[in-house]
């Protein structure tokens, strides 16, 4: 089965609304990263959060390692937040290759 599952698959927001994206993974992970992929395709790392809570700007990630889940909270969404959010885990195999989920597509309208 899929090792990294993200939900919801898509999300539609009005500007200013908050959103919570979920990531569940099937194996113990030593690293977890959240990425943003723009509509144009470029991939940007948002947060590296293997455990606990981390903030950056309007983003908060909480990872509970023993429950194999992570969330990404977007507060006060803006139209520029539209894109796909990818969760990826590192099943340490001697090289830290990432296993990606298929993402949550977020659309924020004005």
């Amino acid at each position, binding site marked *: 089965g899929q090792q990294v599952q993200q939900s919801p698959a898509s999300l539609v927001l009005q500007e200013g609304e908050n959103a919570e994206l979920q990531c569940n993974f099937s194996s113990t992970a030593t690293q977890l*990263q959240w990425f943003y992929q723009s509509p144009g395709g*470029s991939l940007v790392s948002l947060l590296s959060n293997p455990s606990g809570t981390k903030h950056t700007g309007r983003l908060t990630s909480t990872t509970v390692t023993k429950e194999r889940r992570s969330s990404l909270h977007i507060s006060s969404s803006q139209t520029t937040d539209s894109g796909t959010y990818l969760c990826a885990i590192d099943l340490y195999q001697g090289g*830290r290759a990432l296993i990606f989920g298929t993402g949550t597509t977020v659309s924020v309208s004005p």
Partner: protein
Amino acid sequence: DMKVTQMPRYLIKRMGENVLLECGQDMSHETMYWYRQDPGLGLQLIYISYDVDSNSEGDIPKGYRVSRKKREHFSLILDSAKTNQTSVYFCASSSDRERYAEQFFGPGTRLTVL
């Protein structure tokens, strides 16, 4: 400025032609990766390189080979490209010195094989 670069950004080739995708990084990272991204499948690991001339297959290596002769450069080669290799290819790098090392990604190469 920490950066991963990829060349070319867009490429159109005919079936059977050879393809060379180049990746560079300026962070002296030991480990580099090649992924491909297809709709509905997410990113999948093709090859991983732990350092110069130290490469390992990822999840989908068939039809690809790699070359790493300098730490800062990692090439992906398709000998006799196939139409099912049409995809977006991402290169990434990470440091082995940090316990929870982040991966840094390049901008991607969109390859179309006709």
